[in-house]
C-alpha cells in the first residue's frame, strides 16, 4: 500500500512537470516538449459544421470538425493541440464529384493527401484561423488557407497555394495535378 501511494505520488509529480498548457495563440516554437496548446476560449468552435460556396461554376463543400489533444511534432519535439480538420468535396457544374476528402482518415505517418489542418490563429492580425493544406497528388496546391468568421452563418475563405516541385519517378505525368479548391481571397462560405 505504501509503495502504491509512493508510486502514485511520483507519477503525479512527473505528470505535472511533463505537461504545461498554453493558449492556441502561443507559438509552439522553443516551448517545452509535451506542452498542450488548448482552445481555452473556444475560438475554433464557430467553424465546426458543414459549409458551402460556389466558385467558377463549382460547388465546394467543407466539413469541419474539431479534434482535441492531437499530437503534432515541431522542430523535433512532440506537442498536443486542439485542431480543426477540414474535409472537402468539389463538384463541377453537372454535380459530378471531381475531388473529395470527405471520407479520408489521416493516421500518423500515413498519406496526408488533401489534408487541411489548423495550425495557428491570428497570423494576419484579423483573428483568422490559419491552416496548412497538404495539396493533392504529389502535394500540388499545398499551401496556406485562412478562415475568418463573418457571422455565425458565414466565413471568409482565403487560399494561397505554394510552389511544388515534381519528379517523374514518384509523380508520373499522367496524374491529375489540377487545383480544384478555390484559389481566391475572401470567398464567402455559408453554413448548411
Amino acid at each position, binding site marked *: 500500500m505504501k509503495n502504491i501511494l509512493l508510486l502514485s505520488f511520483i507519477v503525479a509529480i512527473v505528470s505535472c512537470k511533463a505537461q504545461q498548457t498554453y493558449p492556441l495563440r502561443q507559438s*509552439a516554437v522553443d516551448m517545452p516538449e509535451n506542452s498542450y496548446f488548448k482552445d481555452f476560449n473556444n475560438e475554433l468552435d464557430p467553424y465546426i459544421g458543414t459549409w458551402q460556396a460556389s466558385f467558377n461554376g463549382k460547388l465546394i463543400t467543407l466539413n469541419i470538425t474539431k479534434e482535441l489533444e492531437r499530437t503534432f511534432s515541431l*522542430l523535433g519535439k512532440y506537442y498536443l493541440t486542439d485542431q480543426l480538420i477540414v474535409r472537402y468535396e468539389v463538384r463541377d457544374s453537372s454535380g459530378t464529384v471531381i475531388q473529395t476528402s470527405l471520407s479520408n482518415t489521416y493516421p500518423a505517418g500515413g498519406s496526408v493527401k488533401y489534408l487541411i489542418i489548423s495550425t495557428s490563429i491570428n497570423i494576419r492580425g484579423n483573428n483568422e484561423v490559419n491552416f*496548412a493544406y497538404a495539396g493533392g497528388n504529389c502535394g500540388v496546391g499545398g499551401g496556406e488557407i485562412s478562415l475568418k468568421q463573418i457571422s455565425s452563418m458565414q466565413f471568409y475563405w482565403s487560399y494561397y497555394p505554394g510552389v511544388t*516541385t515534381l519528379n517523374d519517378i514518384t509523380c508520373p505525368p499522367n496524374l491529375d495535378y489540377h487545383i480544384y479548391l478555390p484559389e481566391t481571397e475572401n470567398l464567402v462560405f455559408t453554413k448548411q
Partner: protein
Amino acid sequence: MMKTYLFWFAMLAFLLLGCRNDNFNPNETNNSQQALKFRVFSKNNAFMGLVAPNNVHYVVRFGDTQAGLPITGSYSQTQIEIWKIDQTTLWQQLLISDNYYSLISGKKVLNAKGLERILFDTLEKMGLKNKVNLLKINENNSVSIIVQNSDKSTISIPCP
C-alpha cells in the same frame, strides 16, 4: 511570401532531386526577383546558389562525400508530402513567434532566422544533418556560415 516559399521548396527539391547544369550568369542578378541557379562541378562539389532580395545571397553546398548523397528516389512521396505540410506548419508557428518575422508593409514575413530554421529542420528529417553547409553573403559582400546551435536556433559566424 510565395517567393521565399519558392526558395525553400527549391532548396528541398535540390536535395531531393539532384542538380541541374545551368550556368551562373552574374548579369542576371535582379534585386526584385529571386533567381535560383543550380550547378555541379562534380558529385563531390554540389552546390546551389540563390540571389535573394536586398542583395543577400545564400549558397547551399553539400559538405559530405559522394557516398553521403541521397540517391534519387530515396524518399517516398508520402514522406515528402508530410515534410511539406510540416514546413507550412512550422512556417506559420514561426510567424507567431516574435523572433522570427519582420513586418513589411504591415504584413508578417519570415526573417532570415525563421527561414534558416525551416531549412535545418527539413535537412534533419531528410537525414542530412551536418552534411550541408549554408553560406550567407551579406549586402556588404561579407560572408558568413550559418550553423545550428544545440537548441536548433541558428547563428551566423563571419568567415575569416
